[in-house]
């Protein structure tokens, strides 16, 4: 009987007495961070054990618990892109204090206790905040405890010039030269936003002998040279979002190694991220103040002579994009919103590493080259409705759009040098105006060939393309199907 009443007391009054941080942690946090603090599912979620994020100044962790955090975050060398829901409206101040005290003193974490008054004052001070933090935002307010990088004797030089590729720096005179005692490669030493280059030189300390992996991402170009040997190179222009990132491995003896990084910012956004992994280690350490999500590519490609299909958020098209990657390396993205193929490109089709990892937040650009954006506006009248697609026996699509009593059939497949498109109308009635491009200058060349912009040539089997007010269209007669072929210059 005593036993029983103890249990019922326990069940009924748990919330009144439960300032046991460990139990509260289990209840509210362990589903994602793991009962052992190492992150659930073998570290698929961020660890708190050994994490700098819960060390030092407790304000950072309190604010994250109160308001949540979303987007990319680097924890102990690994980048996560998830969302932690805000707990401020669920967990009272004294419980948050107990949980954080537990977290900061468990699993070999050694940080001071958190008291409820601090949580209360931070809650009051941030009461107007109603969106979760991003890692970048909160690090500006509460930087992580300082850690020196593996680079020493680091010197940075800034150069200015309108280069389109990384220049030969030997004859150039730097605008400024600085010593970087923290060993951190950062663009913050450049006074420029565009048309500049930087070089960092220093010594990389390899703690043991073995294969070192380096990961470089940049916007725009960058190179890494170790022991005077090229290690990594990103050329041209483009974003720093993982799609242009490069990795390389170098075998290094233990000890110091001359290390050189060159960087070029042409225009637009800027950034450089450079990480390394010690032999047999799974965690990335960073030499830059920015980190790059180290993506493991998941190539999506044609197989068994059939095209690959990727229905997802494809950058450059709309949310209802349907990608087809044909055998032979010709690719399209059809928009079921705008009822037209909006992108065509060559080479690799798509990389699943963004959408097929974690929550899949964002738009993924085509993985290949020579991307041509044909149009971005609705190609058919407002009443037109997307009706799906049919695959032929080899998997090539015919997209179907209902326009009144007529159905437009729009078929695509690869040929030896590009893409073949067949347009026809099922159901009789008026001719239909088909949008070919709303943005590329169209110029008739020879016969029925037209140049579409500077990359693409399109040939018709007789039909004429017309351009008015910047839009190139084709008049499709219900009785006369049209075949178009697209090839790259």
């Amino acid at each position, binding site marked *: 009987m005593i036993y*029983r009443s103890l249990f*019922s007391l326990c*069940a009924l009054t748990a919330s009144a007495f439960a300032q046991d941080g460990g139990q509260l942690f289990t*209840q509210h946090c362990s589903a994602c961070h793991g009962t052992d603090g190492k992150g*659930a*599912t073998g570290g698929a979620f961020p660890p708190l054990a050994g994490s700098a994020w819960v060390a030092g100044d407790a304000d950072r962790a309190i604010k994250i618990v109160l308001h949540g955090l979303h987007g990319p975050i680097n924890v102990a060398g690994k980048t996560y892109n998830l969302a932690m829901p805000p707990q401020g409206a669920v967990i*009272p101040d004294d419980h948050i204090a107990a949980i954080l005290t537990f977290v900061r003193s468990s699993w070999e974490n050694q940080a001071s206790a958190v008291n409820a008054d601090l949580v209360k004052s931070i809650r009051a001070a941030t009461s107007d905040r109603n969106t979760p933090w991003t890692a970048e935002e909160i690090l500006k307010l509460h930087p992580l405890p300082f850690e020196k990088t593996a680079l020493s004797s680091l010197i940075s030089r800034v150069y200015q010039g309108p280069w389109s590729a990384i220049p030969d720096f030997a004859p150039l005179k730097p605008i400024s030269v600085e010593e970087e005692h923290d060993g951190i490669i950062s663009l913050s030493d450049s006074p420029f936003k565009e048309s500049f280059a930087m070089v960092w030189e220093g010594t990389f300390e390899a703690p043991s002998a073995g294969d070192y992996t380096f990961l470089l991402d940049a916007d725009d170009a960058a190179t890494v040279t170790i022991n005077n040997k090229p290690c990594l190179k990103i050329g041209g222009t483009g974003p720093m979002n993982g799609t242009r990132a490069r990795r390389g491995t170098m075998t290094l003896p233990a000890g110091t190694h001359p290390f050189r990084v060159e960087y070029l910012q042409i225009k637009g956004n800027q950034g450089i991220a450079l990480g390394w992994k010690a032999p047999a280690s799974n965690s990335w350490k960073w030499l830059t103040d920015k980190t790059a999500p180290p993506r493991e590519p998941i190539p999506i490609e044609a197989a068994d002579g059939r095209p690959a299909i990727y229905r997802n958020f494809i950058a450059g098209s709309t949310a209802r994009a349907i990608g087809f990657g044909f055998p032979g390396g010709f690719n399209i993205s059809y928009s*079921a919103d705008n009822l037209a193929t909006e992108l065509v490109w060559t080479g690799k089709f798509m990389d699943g590493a963004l959408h097929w990892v974690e929550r899949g937040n964002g738009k993924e650009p085509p993985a290949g080259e020579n991307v041509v954006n044909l149009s971005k506006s609705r190609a058919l009248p407002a009443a037109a*409705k997307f009706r799906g697609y049919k695959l032929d026996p080899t998997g090539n699509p015919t997209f179907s759009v209902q326009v009144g009593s007529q159905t437009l059939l729009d078929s695509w497949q690869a040929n030896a040098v590009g893409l073949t498109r067949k347009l026809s109308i099922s159901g009789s009635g008026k001719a239909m105006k088909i949008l070919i491009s709303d943005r590329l200058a169209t110029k008739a060349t020879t016969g029925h060939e037209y140049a579409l912009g500077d990359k693409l040539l399109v040939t018709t089997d007789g039909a004429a393309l017309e351009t008015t007010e910047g839009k190139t269209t084709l008049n499709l007669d219900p009785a006369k199907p049209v075949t178009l072929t697209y090839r790259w210059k």
Partner: protein
Amino acid sequence: MRFLLALCITATLAQASTPSEYYLREEIPLPPGEVMEIGSIALMPEQKVAVTTRRGDLWICSGAYGDDLSKVTWTKFAQGLHEPFGMFWKAGWLYLTQRPEVSRLKDDDQDGKADTFETICSDWGINGDYHEYAFGSDPDKNGDIWVVLCLTGSFTADSDWRGWCVRITPDGKMIPTCSGIRSPGGIGFNSEGDVFYMDNQGLWNGSSSLKWLKPGSFQGNPSGNKFHKLANFPAPPEVADKSRVLTEHLKYPVFIPPAVVFPHTLVGQSPTGIACDMTDGKFGPWKNQLYVGEQCHSQVQRVCLEKVNGIYQGAVFHFLQGFEAGIIPVRLDQKAGMLFVGGSNRGWASRGTKAFTFERVKWTGKTPFEIETMTANRDGFTLNFTQPVDPATAGNPASYSMAAWTYILQQTYGSPEVDRAIPKITAATVSRDQKSVRLKISGLVRGHVHHLDSKGIKSASGAPLWHTNAYYTLNEIPK
């Protein structure tokens, strides 16, 4: 106090680790090397089972019902679908609810691969936000598919009809049906054919709940209110911040209170798919009850419902646990009495430690001693049991304990348990057949979750309850 709590936790863990002698859970082997993050399950003729994956593949499994699961074979039927969460088979077609549309597909040329992908309706908005999920039902008696549309980022309604339930008719019309939705995890029917969905804890949703999609109703989150005009609906409820569901329901009868609240962390924290038991006893004695998947805790819960004064309410019980990953779809084969579940923990952590899973559950034929149903009375609750009770323990009010609470209805994320009350159990009367107990209770609180712990009772043969806790949401007190 610390000692008492420790005792409490130990007891819970001991119960959790006991393998079930009542239900047999088996993993169905998956095609090697494939990432099978299952988002929907459909039953096909000849005991074939179709599944879709979050990566957009559709596979068909043969042998999922067999005694020897090593003989299971898989064929890939389609690829390149957009994260479907809802699929059923009907007259030669597989119907899918994908993120951007309701569609159906089939294999016209009979080469084993789908070749016809018909878009039935794509009239709702998506903008590329990962959280704009769409969960679709089986067809209702009119053949309509009910689709619940998650808010943008689970916070706002940046695309058309976010935060709404829409019905898609067989000829592709979209009928806006209910507003006030936040972040659904699954949708299904009860035995009457009424439609329910699971909404997850967050803004304007203090704790995850099973909600009744009564046409024309409002479900609590005002983010999608801007579409009331577009839907030709009356002006939406302007619910007050920091209020209570009951308060706002009384102001706005169109705001249907959640039928059953799943108290956050006590009964899971990410409820998902819904299946109604119409097996006629092939899956145990839970006639017409609902099974609800749970992603975070890798479980399946059990719900009994009743309608009081025109509003659904009822109790949730722990039921099945220990699945290998976070459970998303649940699909019950009513003829075979076989429950299929699948899931993934990508992006949202789960107790089950695998990245994805496909499992089946069979009833062993042995009935646990359990509260079969819990129903409300004017002055308490009636408990019906699966087996005769021991009159001495079941008739003793001290064998039971009760606490009641509710949640704040607010625009911030979730809510603590508030307005706590301790209703007093004054009498426990065992029925003549010993299959039910009538609890007389003073201090019932309308609108509150009533947590009943029946830890002290035993069956006539001396067995303890399989699960002692029940959580009843008392929207209405019977007159």
